């Protein structure tokens, strides 16, 4: 049986008249990485703040590893590692002192265990070169890594990361995603991000919210299937086509939408849009050969999560 490490039921939170989170259900099992998506002000951070116990929901229940967050907050919080938005830290402290402080607060009171975890963090998160430097002197990327390290210091079962790769360079982002993938097998991880390629790269499930409401909660693959049925096949040919040729090609390629555009003398683009199952490559190629066209390039344009995100969040 799968174990739900996070279970939130009917979460509601308002600030005055503004409804930030409106009846959200969310459960995360061990081994899952949830990508939490939504436009700015959608309620992502508010939901994360409620899951970590920083904010109390107006209505609803949150269970962390089966523990009621409201009635046993200290026990529940112990199971969570949290990187708040902007990765706040005590800038006057050295990296080692800061991580040691968080470790002790997280219950690592055995010196040997604390030291082991600290050296693991220095190694795993690549913090060795800044280990004894004050946090205020570090680059944004290093500060973010320190934030990740403090969330991981006690090896929690649950990780809640608010924009973990913000401010990292491409190499650091790649490393961070690999780290998340590596540790995800025995943890439940929730990541909020604006970078949709990140969701595709590391998340097993995507949750999209807008205006405080949950709009999608699907595996990333299902989401693509469900919300983007139309596919685009792009062909580039090294011929300039006359208007009559374009008309002929359009009528012979009997698909929902065919766009033909002369880009220059030796380059013409043909875009075919239809349901995926209707796009038959053999049929396309045979027709194009009939028109004696020199095909330079032929690619399927995969539906991007960006398109899906826009489609879902702008539905209403």
């Amino acid at each position, binding site marked *: 049986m799968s174990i739900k490490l996070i279970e939130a039921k009917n979460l509601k939170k308002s600030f005055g008249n503004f409804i930030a989170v409106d009846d959200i259900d969310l459960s995360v099992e061990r081994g899952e990485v949830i990508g939490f998506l939504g436009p700015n002000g959608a309620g992502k951070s508010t939901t994360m703040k409620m899951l970590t116990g920083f904010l109390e929901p107006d209505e609803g229940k949150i269970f962390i590893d089966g523990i009621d967050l409201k009635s046993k907050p*200290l026990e529940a*919080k112990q199971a969570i590692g949290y990187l*708040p938005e902007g990765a*706040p*830290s005590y800038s006057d402290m050295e990296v080692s002192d800061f991580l040691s402080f968080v470790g002790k*607060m997280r219950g690592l*009171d055995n010196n040997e265990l604390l030291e082991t975890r600290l050296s693991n963090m220095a190694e795993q998160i690549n913090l060795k070169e800044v280990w004894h430097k004050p946090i205020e002197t570090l680059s944004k990327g290093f500060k973010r890594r320190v934030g990740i390290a*403090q969330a991981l210091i006690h090896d929690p079962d649950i990780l809640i990361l608010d924009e973990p790769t913000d401010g990292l360079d491409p190499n650091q982002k790649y490393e961070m995603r690999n780290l998340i993938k590596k540790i995800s097998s025995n943890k439940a991880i929730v990541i909020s991000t604006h970078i949709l390629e990140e969701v595709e790269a590391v998340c097993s499930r995507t949750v999209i919210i807008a205006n405080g409401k949950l709009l999608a909660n699907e595996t990333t693959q299902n989401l693509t299937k469900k919300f983007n049925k139309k596919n685009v096949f792009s062909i580039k040919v090294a011929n300039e086509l006359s208007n009559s040729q374009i008309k002929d090609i359009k009528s012979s390629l009997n698909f929902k939408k065919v766009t033909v555009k002369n880009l220059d003398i030796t380059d013409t683009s043909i875009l075919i849009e239809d349901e995926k199952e209707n796009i038959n490559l053999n049929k396309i190629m045979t027709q194009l050969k009939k028109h004696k066209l020199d095909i330079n390039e032929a690619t399927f344009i995969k539906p991007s999560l960006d398109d899906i995100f826009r489609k879902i969040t702008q539905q209403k």
Partner: protein
Amino acid sequence: MNAYLNKTFIIFDRELRGYFRTPLASIFLLVFLALSSGMTFFLGRFFERDQADLTAFFAWHPWLFLILMPAIGMRLWAEERRSGTIELLMTLPVTNSQLVVGKFFASWLFTLIALLLSTPIWITVNYLGNPDNNVIFISYLTSWLMAGAFLALTSCLSTLTKNQVIAFIISSISGFILIMAGFSLVLSTVRSWAPIWITETIGSMSFLSHFSRVQMGVFDLSTLIFFVSMIILCLWINIQLVQIKKAD
């Protein structure tokens, strides 16, 4: 209980070391020693009085603390809220009371260090004459308790804002009101329109009248109880305010 104290101590330790990580500690200690000595010798006319006591030294403490305690305490919560570390702190497995108490004791111990550094003046007065050391000891103790009350008030008020300067100003103004509450000018103004019990309550809240009694050599348990109660009350309000204001 042990676990409670353990977490409180970790907070206390981080906070206290924080004072010494920046030049704040040395600047504060220097300013405190310079001002307290300056006021004692120049404004208090320590030598001209020709008496072996520290009345001239302690008399200025309420006024010194009015400025210096808000300077120490203004960052306690305002800075946590400004930098966002309050979110980190309050998602750790720790209670609000552990956070408030740990932070307060760190700042209070820091003021004890400042007071202890002023003890050469106690040695000096013993070298020059035969002072009543019991009165001096009680004065030191009461001074530290009064500093604690100023700090608890500042800590409490610093939760109301993300701006340290605003925290400093509102704490100083509130402290000033608490000092002035015992002045006859204030009391006679209040007496003219308020019932006697209100006048007496306001009078009894005065830091200055409580502190002056001790300096005159009157060891009054009610003074110690007053300052301790003020500390407990302010910290209790502080705990509630942290809960209310944390996400603003």
